[in-house]
Structures are given as C-alpha cells and as structure tokens.
C-alpha cells in the first residue's frame, strides 16, 4: 500500500468543445466535484473586472433619482481585458485614487429637442480608451446593444463623473464577469437494444418522444429501425424516459448514470472578459490560493 502522493493525485484534463464570442463549453475530467465547483465559484465571484463604483452628480433633473442612476451605471459591464494592469484601490499606493486603480468616465447629456432623448451606455465617455462600456466596442456597433440608462425630456439634463474600479463579484454582483457558469455531469446512457426490439414501432416512437430534450432518435423509415442516442449531453436527468419505460413494463430498457469525474462546463461572459479568459483567470486564482495555503502550511501557520 505504499502509494506516493503523486500517484494518488489525479491529473485533471480540460478539453474545449466550443468557443464563441461570449461563451465557452469545455470538459473538465479526471477530477473531483470539489475542484469543479471551486472553478465554478471562482468564475462567478472572484475573477476581477472593472465597474463603475463611485458616481458624482453635478446635475440631474431627470425623472430617475441619483441613487437609481448610479446603480444602473454600476451594472453596465466595462471591457476589462487589461484588468491585470489595475490594482485594487485598497491595495494601491495612492491616497485617494489614481490611474493605477481607477478609470474616470463622464456622462454629460442634455435634451434640447422636443422628443425624448435616450441616454445610453454609448454616452459614457471614458478617459481610458481600453476601459469602455462593452456595448461601445467597435465589434458591437449595433445600437440595439446599447444599454439604456435614462430617458430625458426637453430641458432635462444629466451631468456626472463616474469612477470605475477593480472589484470582484463577491463584493457586488456587478463585478461578476460571467452571466452563467455551470457544469453538468457527463451522462452515461446505455440502451438495452434487446428490450427496445421488443417494442412496437409506435411504442418506440412514443418512448423516443418522451424525452423533452430529444436525447434519442428514431425514424421508422430508417433501414436499421434502431433507436439511437443522438446527443447524450442534452440529457437533464429528468428521467422521463425511465418513467416511460416503466409504463411499458420494461424498467431495464435504458440505464442512466452520471459520470462522477467528468464535468461539462458552460460559461457565458457578460462581455467584460473573453469567456476563455474567465476560465484562465479562474484557474490562476485557484492556483494562487493553493500556493498561499501551501506557503502558509510550510510556515506552520496552518
């Protein structure tokens, strides 16, 4: 029974299935739930981004009150690709704030026309061209993506100075870079073809139709007349197929199991960071935490 630590430790693997502009799907395997969940939690709450945190109003006679507008501004995602170049205000060497730890944005809109003027995220002017509202990026010039802040009527004016700071989702949800960060277990679905063959064509069709997410496929016109698994990843473990099989009196028609060491992750970005960056940052943060613990253990602090 003399196993070394390195033999006990598993080597987690990460396989990317799909990367889009705003989402990533990858498989994390050969590891434990705790690791998968840690990754998920860090992606939501601990990957830092830039967000408006302080707002100084100079003028606001719009219909919305100051706090409400400030809150809305805070929730506008800002491009945080160079987040590493900023430090937290609390760690910064400056006394109040400086360019190292914050970015100033300005909003200065007055409605002079007779029709309502929509103030949107595109009216926010940043002093740092790298930290701008996500919707103002060149890649997304689509005006539908602009985030409305307030509507002004003739004579109404809004003039303010907003200061964006670095922060994490733990502190306030606005700093969370991910809209969705979740995983599911890899399902193992085994069909008992013998049992399926016992079914009539109509029953087969009914059984395949019982799955709300269409995991199985069957076409009576197919030459093979076989029920096949189209996409096991679609399975949400609703066990509708199992229930249907039981109603036919064939509980062993299908076998469903979750593979406990293989996780399919889906991460969607708010736009502040690229989805793959969220994952990378998260891994980096976990590593740093572990190193911290290691260091402290070595020092005998733990």
């Amino acid at each position, binding site marked *: 029974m003399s196993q070394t630590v390195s033999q006990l430790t598993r080597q987690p693997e990460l396989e990317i299935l799909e990367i889009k502009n705003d989402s990533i799907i990858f498989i994390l395997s050969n590891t434990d*739930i*705790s690791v*998968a*969940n*840690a990754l*998920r*939690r860090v992606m*939501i*709450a601990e990957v830092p981004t830039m967000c408006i945190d302080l707002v100084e*109003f100079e003028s*606001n006679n719009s*219909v919305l*009150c*100051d*706090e*409400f507008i400030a*809150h809305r501004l805070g*929730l506008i995602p800002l491009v945080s690709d160079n987040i590493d170049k900023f430090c937290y205000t609390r760690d910064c060497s400056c006394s109040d704030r400086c360019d190292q730890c914050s970015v100033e944005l300005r909003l200065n809109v007055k409605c002079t026309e007779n029709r309502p003027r929509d103030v949107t995220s595109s009216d926010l002017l940043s002093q740092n061209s790298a930290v701008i509202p996500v919707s103002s990026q060149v890649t997304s010039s689509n005006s539908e993506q602009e985030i409305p802040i307030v509507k002004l009527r003739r004579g109404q004016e809004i003039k303010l100075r907003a200061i964006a700071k670095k922060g994490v*989702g*733990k502190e*306030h*949800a*606005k700093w*969370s870079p991910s809209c*969705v*960060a*979740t*995983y*599911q*277990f890899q399902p193992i679905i085994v069909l008992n073809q013998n049992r399926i063959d016992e079914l009539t064509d109509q029953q087969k069709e009914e059984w395949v139709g019982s799955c*709300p*997410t*269409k995991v199985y496929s069957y076409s009576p016109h197919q030459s093979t007349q076989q029920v096949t698994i189209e996409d096991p990843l*679609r399975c*949400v*473990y*609703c066990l*509708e197929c199992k229930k249907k099989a039981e109603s036919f009196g064939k509980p062993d028609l299908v076998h469903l199991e*979750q593979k406990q060491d293989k996780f399919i992750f*889906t991460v*969607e970005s708010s736009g502040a960071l690229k989805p793959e960056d969220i994952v990378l940052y998260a891994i980096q943060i976990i590593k740093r935490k572990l190193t911290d613990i290691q260091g402290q253990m070595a020092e005998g602090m733990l």
Partner: protein
Amino acid sequence: MSEELKSLIQPHIDSFDFFTDHGIDLVLKDSEPLYFEHNSTQYKIRFTDLKLSRPTRNIVEKEIKLYPNESRETGTTYNAPFKGAIGLYEVNEMDEMDDGTEVDYNKQEPTHTFEVDLGRLPIMVKSRYCHLNGMSPEKLIESREEELEQGGYFIVNGNEKVVRMLVMTKANHPVALHRKAWTNRGPGYTKNGITIRCVRPDRSSITNNLHYINDGQTTLRFLYRRQEFFLPATLLLKALKDTTEKEIYENIVQGDNENTFLTDRVELSLREQKINNINTQEEVLDYIGSRFRARTQFPPSFSNIKIGRWFINQFVFVHLPNYNDKYNLLILMIQKLYAMVGGKCGTDNIDSPAFQEVLLAGHIYGMILKEKLTEYLESTKSFVLKSFEDKKKSGDKLPDALKKVLDKNFKIADRFSYFLATGNLRSSSGIDLQQTSGFCVIADKLNFLRFISHFRSIHRGAFFATMKTTAIRKLMPESWGFFCPVHTPDGAPCGLLNHLSSNCLVTVDAAQDPTVQKAQTLLPSFLAAHGMLPIDMVSVYQHQYLTITLDGRVLGKIEPKAGEEMVKMLRYLRSMGNEPSIPKTMEISYAPPTNVENGQYSGISLFTTGARFMRPVVNLTSGQNELIGPQEQLYMEIAVVPHEVIKGVTTHIETSPTAMFSLLANLTPFSDYNQSPRNMYQCQMAKQTMGTPLHSYPFRTDNKLYKVQNVQKPIVHTKNQFKFRCNDYPHGCNAVIAVISNTGYDMEDAMIINKSAYERGFGHGSVYKNEYIDLDQGLSRFEQKKTFFGRPNTVVDELDKFIDTDGLPFVGRLIKPGEPYYTYIRPSDGRQVTKDYKGKEEAYIEDVRIIFGPNGATRDPSKINNICVKLRFNRNPVIGDKFSSRHGQKGVLSQLWPEINMPFTESGMKPDVIINPNAFPSRMTIGMLVEILAGKAGAIHGKFQDATAFQFDENNTAIDFFGEQLAKAGFNRFGNEQMYSGTTGKEFECEIFFGVCYYQRLRHMVKDKYQVRALGKVNALTRQPIKGRKVGGGIRFGEMERDSLLAHGASFCLNDRLMKSSDFAKIKVCKLCGSTLTIYSKKDYSNQTVSECKSCKSSDSIATISIPYVFTYLVAELAAVNITMKLQVS
C-alpha cells in the same frame, strides 16, 4: 381614457354631479321658511337663491381658476365660491291658506333680498364642476395630473378624501322586520313592524315605521327634532283621504273575509279610533295640528289644519307628495304587517343587499346642505332677535339688523370642509343616518390598487361594528355578483367593509337620466295596457291579486298568473332597451306568491330611483345584456356557465364566472385553485404593497409616498389586469423562485434572497416624505409674517456645506440626522437662527417648494416664510423586510445569500428567491404552484399567461396545459428540476420545484419599526422608562416575560431587568416608625444635609434602602386614603 377604470369611480362622480346639477336646486325649492315676529308683525325669511361656481383662487382681489394640483401642493382645499340669497317676507294670506295644495314660495316677492357669502364649498375632483372634467389625457398631464386621473375624491388641506359608500335601507320599499327594541316603545308594542325609508327627490330621507301593537292596532312612527311620535294608522288613513271606515276596512281586507285574524284586527283598530269622534279628513288634520302646534314655530294665524298638513307633508311618506298615494301605501303596509303577524309571510332580511342601496358623497352633501340652510336661518333669527334686545340697536330697522347678522353668521361651506376633513357629521336632526362619524377616509395612495379600492369599498355602518352578533357580517348568497365574496378585511371590519364587484354599478337619479324621468310618467299607463288594474279603478277586492308598486307608490293590482307573464315581458323589454316606458336601470322585483313558510310578501316592486345596485347579465331570450338588481335576483334563474343552462328554466346567464369578484380579487392569478382565505389575505396584501401609486411624483406632496424601482408586468396575469389598466401601475417583479428547504434561513415563512439579485436591483425602492415648514407656526403674533428664510451670515457661520445662501437646504444633498437644515432671520433682533434636521434617518432633499399664501402676489424671493421640503429615503431591502407572492403567502427576508452558495440548475439558473416547501401543505395555495409553473413556461416561450380564474377544470387541467408548454421547451412537465448545491457542488437527491413567480414588496419595513433603548426618557411620576418607539422608549417587559424569568429561577436577571435597569432608587426610611413620608432633609450648621424623621424627631434612625421608585408613589397614594405603610428595616 380607460372607460372601465372610469366606471369603477362613476358612482361617486355621478352623485356629486347630481348634487351640483340638481340637488342644490331641489334643496332650495324645498327649503322651509322661518317665521318670526318683530314689532308685532309676522315675518319670514327663506333662501331664495343658491349659487355654486367653479373652483377659484383669490389673487389680489382677482379670482382665477384653481386646479386640483395647486390645492394638493400647497396643502389647501379644492373649493369653489358658494353664494346665496336670503329673502325677507311679510307673512301674507297666501301663507295662511290651507287648501291642501303645495305652497310655491318662489312665487312670492320678498320685501328685501340679501346676498350672502356661504364660504367655499369643497368640490369633487373630475366632477362636472371641476376644471379637470372632460380633459384629454394630454391636458391632464399638462395640469400636473395623472394620465389616468379618475377623480371621485375631495382635496381638503392637501389630503385626498373619499366619502366612503355606506349601505342604506332600500329607498321607498316597505320592509317587514322583527326588532326586539321595538317592544320598549310603549305599552303593548311588539317586535313586529314594517319600516320604510322614504327618500325625497333631493335624496334626503325620513324613515317611517309601522308598529304592531298587541291588541291588533297599528301605529306609524316618525321622528321630529330627534323626538319620536306615533300616529294610529287608522287615524292617519282618515287624515290622508276623506273616506269612510267601511272603505278603509274593505281596502285593507280586500275581500278576504274568511281571514278572521285580519278582519278582527282591522275592526278593532277602526273601533279604537272612534272614541275621539273625529271623522272627516279636516277634523283629523285639525286634531293632529292642534297636538303638534306647541312644538312648531308657525305664527298663531296659521290654522291647525295647515300645521297638520305640514306634518304629513314633512314626515309621512315623504317620497309621495300625493295624499292618495300615501293612503294606498299605508294600506299596503298595514296589509303586509298583518300578513307577517298572521304568519302569511316572513320577515325581510335587512342585512341582505336585496333590501339595501347605497349612500354616496353627493347625497350626503345634499342632506347636509338642507340641514345647514335651516340652521343658518335659525341662527340668523336668534341673532336678529337678540340684537333688538340691545338697547342701542333696538331702534335699528329690521333689514339693517338682518344684514349685519348675515355678514357675521357662520359659513355653511365651512361645515362641509369640516365634514370632509374629520368625517364627523355635526347634525341637529341626525339626517336619518345611524352614525355621526367615520364618513370620510383619506384615499391612501400607497399603491394604485389600494387607491382604487377606496372607491369600491362600501361600509355597512359604524353602528354595526359595535354589534356583538356576527349575523350582519355573514356572506349572503343574495350578495352574489354585487359584493365581492373575497375582498373584505379579516379582523374587526370583516364582512362590514365590503367591496363592490367589478361590474356592479350604481344607478343614477331620475333627474340625471331623462329616459328614466320619461319612463316614470309612461310606466303606469303602459302597465295598465298590459293587464294591470290601476289602483283607483280596483273595485272588486281580490286579496290574492299582486300589488304593483313603482318606487313605493302603489300603481295597481294584477292577477298572479298575468303578473308572472308581465314580469317576463318587462324583463325582455328592459334587456332590449328600446321601450321608452322601461328604462334599462329599472329593477323589476317579483316575489311570487308562495306557500313557503317565512316567504317574502308577494308582489311586484319596480324601482327607478338612484343609488341602487345593478349588474349586467345576459338575457337568454333576447341575447342582450340586461341589468338586474339584487332583489329580483333572488327569484331569477341565472346560469353561471353555458353548460348549466336548463332549458325552460334558466332565463339568464352570467357575463363571466369571475364577474362576482371585485377588481382586486380578480387580479389574483388562479384564485380558483387557492384555499379561500388565502385569496382574502392577498386582497389585504395587495393593498399594502409598495407599488406604483402614481407617475406624477414631482407634483405630489403627500405625507408619505412609496416607490419601487424595476417594477414589471406580471408574466402570469388575469384579464382584468388589462381591462382596468393595472399594468400601468405595476406593483411587483417576476422573480425566479425555488421551493426548497435549503439553509435553515427559510424556516417559518422566512425567505432567502439571492444577494446578487438584490445587488442587481431586486426590490429596490424609496420613500418620499414631505415636510411643511411654516415659520409663522409657533411664533407670537408680533413676529408672524415678519420671519423669513435667509442666511445673512454666510461668511462666518460655516454652513456652506449644508445650507444655500437663501437659508434653504440644497436640493439633491444627503442630509443626516442632526445636521443643519435651514436658517431664518428672527425679526426681533435680526439675527440668523439655524434649525437642525430632526429626522432619525438620513435622507436626500428631493426638492424644496416655496409656498406663497393665498395672497401670493408678492412673490418676493427674499420674503419666503412657508416651504415644503420633499425628502427621499433610500429603502432597498434589508433583512427583516416583508415580501409576498400574490397568494397570501407573505414572508420576511431573512438572509441575502451569496449567489455562489445558491443552488443552481443544470442550465446554471440560480433562484432570486428561496421559500420553504412547508409554506404549502397547510395553506393549500395551489394557485401559487400553478403560477410558478405558468410563469416558467411563459418566461421560456416569451409570452404572457392568462391566469383568469375558472378557465380550467378536471378534464382540462392547468397542470397539463402548462406542463405541455414546459415539455415543449425541454423541461420537466411538473416544473421540477435537478439542482446542485452551490456550496458543495453535489447534486441534490430530490428534484426541486423551480419557476417564476410575481413577488410584491410590502410596505412593512424594519427601518420603520426597529426599536432600541439603552438610556432614555423616564416617566416623571414613576421614573420608569417610557413606552413608544417615536420617543425612544423601551419595550415592555410584561407579566408573561416576568413569569418566564421566575420559572427559570433567574433571580439576578429579574432584579436587573425590573429594578436596576428600570426605576432603581435609594430612599430614606425611619427605622423607628417605618415611614418613608415623614423624612425631611435640612442643612445643619456645617452646611451638610441631615435627614430627620419629623414624627419621631430623630435623625439617628434614618436608613437608606434600595427600592423601585414606583413604591414611593404607592406609599403616597395609600397615604391619601388614610393608610400608612410601615417598613421594617433592620
């Protein structure tokens, strides 16, 4: 403009329009002259004119239009000048005539006319006299009103006041009753009686009771100057018609000679009244007049007959001017009374809507006006006569004296403002109402639903709230479709404060509706043409014939079979609405002849008066909507849904099965799936929701206004939500909800909110408060109107951060408790005075409005002495705030739980709200489960879901319908989902019910309720801590709390709480006599305080003991009743 929304408030507006357009004239026409003698000449005074204008405001002797919002913002009353004229007459022979015709006082020419200013009368917003009437939504917004402003309320001192609807006995309909109290009215009086509330065209009323006396006689009771009088019915019959006893006998018995019970009694009552030997009508009138003469103010020249007539005109069946009609009605009432006593019919249930109608603002206005006019004349008379007693003025001419008095007399309109401001009715006669207070309530704009509900609420009467029996609170089957069975508060006013169903309407008076007026004259001949025997042509008495009455006037008789046919025909014609003699709003009540014990007295009663309840149902014969009343409904066959229709029996069908609900009850989704009390709770809670009360926030100065940010339309809604424009005033937010017992923070109706959801704005809101700061308040008269805001010491006072140079606070600034608030200049020495912000909660200054008084012409910015500051308080959810779904499921926020720890579904969804599954089994709010299911399906498919009640049944269940939609989107059809723990990442063993539910934030917030005390004020007498949150008092440590400490044996704690932390005191006691009262302290030669017992003359015997201070109070109190208390001190 939403017509549906308008219809909800219409009764209030209609009634006020009735008052302004017709009521004033009717009251004036009816107003009685007041007689008095001066220099041995008989005079009389009476009102000859009353004139109401539209609301105005006075600016430097100029009247300009006053708009409601100006009154609201300045905290004044929305009122209009009310003027009148009083005529002085010398009494002439026309007054003294008594030929029985109505005297038309308007035909006489007064010797003098005096213009009188009656003050300013509060006007109902959006009534015809209001400037907002008929305005388009754009214009309304220009006038700083809501786009959907409906009016129906008054503005008194800046508050919006509603005159709440009040249940009244149905007008002009004899009601058979048993009332125990009646036995005390005199010897032989029984509990049996018939009561009739007679309503004049001006809506003022007099109630007459016909009492049954043991020996078989009947007497009619009426009130005159709050005193009751009884007239024997047979005597009254003779006074009403020159008739014979034989005729009276025949009229009552109607050929039913076999009925010895009836004949015996009629004979007896006729015989009893024979004693006085007064037989002819004139003799009887003379007799009545002579009896009442002493109590009246008529000049001596008036004959007794005239006075007798006056009494009958004023107090007997006042809805019928014609004596023959009065006679016939009295006969009918006697018949009904004998039928009830003889067991032929039962009593009527006065608590049922079948015998009820409504009292509205305009009607009360008319009643008050009528009474105040009389009081005005009376006080004028007494002041005039008094002024002549003064020797200096005794030589004055009468018109001059009168003019002087009139200028000084009270202002009638002020009485209306008082009535609206307090809800109290100060009346000399009681105006035939059962209560004197509680008529008006503030129309609270907490949210739209609460506001609108004020106009639909109808109260049974304050008198009934004190009754011990619960019978009046019962939900009557008769109230189906008229009063909402769901929408009533639980607790004290349960069943007394009801709400009208959403499509129940209130009829208008004939004066307002020409078709009704026309029909009233056409109807008798129309009925006669269709089988009715007109009453004056009935010669063959047939007691089984049905009596046909119209608004309490006996029209004729009809053979029972023909009567039934006639009713059918009348209803058909009413539904078609094209027969001029049958108005749409006529109630056709038909009580068929029956052998059932305690059945209703048979007959056909037609009603065309105003203030009755009506509601639409579909007539199956004509296929048209037909309005029906609550009394006729009892005998109608109305199906609720089409499959209930029985051929040949069913005549009508409901417009919708949800028609029986009020507006609010109709908004509860899937209310048919809930246990019924939960729907009641929801009606309560909807009215406590922090919602959107209005959109014109900048123009409102309400004491307190709530606002919730990020409100949404509910995904799951009912049809009424659109019909009544409720989506324009949303009051909640669609929350993702998981029903799971997760952390323990969801126990006992607590709910967990996702911290990130909160941070993204869930339930965020604010409270607005307005503070009026009037510098003149509390100042001496010398200083008033000379004190102004200002800040001359700008350089030295170091207030630049807090206060602007004009002495007013900065708009937009966050002000903290104790900070400087405003400065003003004291006129006495010209110095600057700074006042601090007294509030206990930090607030933003939303705006500061400057109020110039009524003489606001001098708009000098340096002379501001009255301002209104609007403060905005941040009220984002904190732990302890209250939330609820729309199913009576309220809960308290117990924890803002970090998102990463929240359970999540396969797709990564995390709930906004977690509630405990234990909230469901005992409460059985299945509707909420269905709503969550429907909400989830709706959210996925991007559509709103219809949740109107009664659309699903056993064959077509809601679960199947919405489950199908869920399955289509790849979800479990029962709404369950596999979830993972956010903390461990592991899968939960069971599936979790997960979906979308509309959540409301309730107004109960910790910030308004928390109470803490360390040190603070104490009661001067007992030195114990005072109570009350506002004054920083403590929370009572009561008897039960004390008991629990005793039970624990926690004696130190007990001593600490009840003595040390309360009124601990050290007092001196004399060891010899044991008294604490005899000890006096004085200074000795070395100026040291020495105590001495005065009774023992000893200073050595003094000891100091620790006791609760109240003990000294007890000792003193006992000493006052001659009891000494001695303490044994060792």
